[in-house]
């Protein structure tokens, strides 16, 4: 370091932490291991500090030298070179939060969005990994609270429940499922069906009123059973909770951890599945239909109907498939016609009519 640099003086404001009487514009210079503060007005020496007795805090456009022992004694300087020169003199001195390069800002933006993307992409895989290891009993205990919530909106029809049970028995056959699947019919006009935690499948009245054959009901049931069996519901809950937790951690709001109610679980559980999960449920559902001797025609009719509806936009059907695979992907999955007829028949005409009006509404 040159003598000129070493002897450089810095203008700033000194304060002794006791009274403003001794505070004011001052000059700071260093002499060997000592820092000398002099009054700008009178050149009188105000303080003499040892280098090892001070710490420096550096921020954009401001540096604050503080005495470690004499509490309250400080020197505020706006010269950006002061911390660099003093750091050369004493490398252990400088610490702070100074960051002021534009390229660094751009770099940080890229890192930030990369990190967000990484969390977003890995959330599905991580959530599925964890979900497969959650015991089925735990998921069922979650559904017991949810059942109360679902029951409030469900409607009862002995005949419709019997027909749905019959289709379910046909689909399940001899399979050993992880869950005792329960189907509830909701008195909601929305065209929708959900898989909920613990093996509960919710069919909306609006959905049953829109189907054109029992095969379409079987197709949707098979699809939803696959969501249950592949633990997509638990995976979605875990993913949503994980993202909510990351969000809370980043922004410091932990109030959401205090409030947990069935309504929240319901909204998490009915959050749409990923496209990958939907495709996987489609494949498993088609296999179930084949093994149960049920025609793929219902699957094709129903899912292509809603795919086209989505492409036309604005329909009630949109709520069901907003993350489902495209119609061309589904066509490849389903295979080419003609499909075999269901043998034996799934439901008689009278049974299907009862299914179409599950809440015994006067039509």
């Amino acid at each position: 370091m040159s003598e000129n640099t070493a002897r450089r003086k810095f203008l700033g404001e000194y304060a002794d932490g006791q009274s403003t009487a001794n505070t004011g514009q001052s000059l700071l210079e260093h002499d060997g291991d000592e820092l000398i503060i002099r009054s700008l007005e009178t050149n009188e020496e105000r303080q003499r500090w040892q280098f090892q007795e001070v710490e420096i805090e550096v921020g954009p456009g401001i540096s604050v030298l503080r005495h470690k022992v004499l509490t309250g004694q400080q020197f505020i300087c706006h010269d950006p070179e002061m911390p660099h020169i003093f750091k050369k003199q004493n490398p252990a001195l400088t610490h702070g939060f100074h960051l002021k390069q534009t390229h660094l800002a751009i770099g940080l933006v890229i890192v930030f969005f990369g990190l967000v993307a990484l969390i977003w992409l890995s959330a599905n895989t991580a959530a599925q990994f964890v979900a497969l290891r959650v015991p089925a009993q735990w998921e069922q205990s979650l559904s017991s609270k949810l059942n109360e919530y679902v029951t409030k909106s469900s409607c009862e029809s002995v005949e419709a429940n019997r027909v749905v049970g019959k289709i379910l028995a046909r689909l399940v056959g001899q399979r050993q499922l992880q869950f005792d699947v329960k189907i509830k019919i909701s008195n909601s006009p929305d065209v929708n069906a959900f898989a909920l935690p613990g093996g509960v499948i919710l069919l909306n009245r609006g959905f049953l009123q829109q189907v054109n054959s029992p095969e379409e009901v079987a197709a949707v049931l098979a699809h939803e059973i696959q969501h249950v069996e592949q633990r997509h519901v638990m995976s979605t809950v875990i993913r949503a909770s994980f993202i909510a937790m990351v969000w809370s951690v980043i922004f410091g709001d932990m109030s959401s951890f205090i409030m947990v109610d069935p309504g929240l679980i319901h909204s998490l559980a009915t959050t749409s599945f990923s496209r990958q999960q939907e495709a996987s449920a489609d494949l498993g559902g088609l296999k179930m239909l084949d093994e149960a001797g049920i025609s793929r025609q219902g699957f094709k009719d129903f899912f292509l109907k809603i795919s086209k509806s989505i492409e036309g936009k604005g329909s009630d059907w949109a709520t069901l498939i907003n993350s489902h695979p495209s119609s061309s992907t589904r066509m490849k999955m389903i295979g080419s016609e003609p499909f075999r007829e269901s043998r034996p028949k799934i439901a008689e005409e009278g049974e299907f009519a009862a299914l179409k009006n599950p809440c015994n509404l006067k039509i």
Partner: protein
Amino acid sequence: MQPDIQQDQSSTQEFYRFQFFGQGMDFFVIMLKNIILTIFTLGIYHFWAKVNSRKFLWQNMEFASSRFLYTGTAIELLIARLKFFGIVAVAVLIVALISMGGLGETVGMLVGGLIYFAFFLCVPYLIIGAWRYRLSRTTWKGIQLGMMDCGKEYTMSFIGGYILTILSFGLYYSKWSHDLYRIPCENIRMGTLRFKYTGKPWDLLVPCIKAFFLTIFTLGFYIPWFVAEMARYRASHTFIGSETNGFARMQCKLTGGQILGQVLLQYLLIVFTFGLALPWVIINNLNFFCENIFFQGKLDFSNIQQSNLARPGALADGIGDALDIGIG
């Protein structure tokens, strides 16, 4: 007692202004670094991030040619958060023990509800506690700021005023808002300097009633004009000083149109940049504050003595942060 400034209208009066020197890009970099490190450290850095932002904002704010400094530490905030975890854990444990014990789930829910209600009642106390903590970690010319413990008085006024405002169909609001401003204001200390508020509880009754009707008739557009009127009244009755140092009166030049313009500007900047402009919006707000609020009078800054105010812990600030109460 009315400070001397009321009588002293001589030409010897001076202006004491605020000035903010921070740049948007600097604050943007700090906020970005805060977010990234908070993610990487699974939230632990949150407390250091908070301190970084406060240091930047405090150190770039100048009053009467001297900067404010923030001396709080992240460790204090971290310890406060851990204490809060402890309090929540005890509350949850009590409810769980009652529910699983002989008293049953209903009693457990009742106790849980009472604990939750108690938290709500504590909110005014937390607001004062957080301000006391922050002021006690703020220095100006090496003098520590602070606030006397007025949590109990503020809480009583907050809850009582809230109930009375509802029962009086809003007529009590003038007195309520007066108390909520006066109590913290008169308890702030800047070494031996203190704040004095000479406003009257019912002076704003007519403006409040007028604002009620005009807000309805203008679909809310009158609100900025009401806020400006309140701010001008409060400022013109707020003084800083002491018997030995003299007094200066706060002045506020804000108009309703300025506030409306500022709010609209903020809204547009945030929406059209998807939130990326937040640091610039915060800094713009601070500059807006500095341009429109200042002190006028005759104050001797050369002999302010350090006070012996207590340095409260960060628990109230930490709880407010954890529950996102929005203390500011």
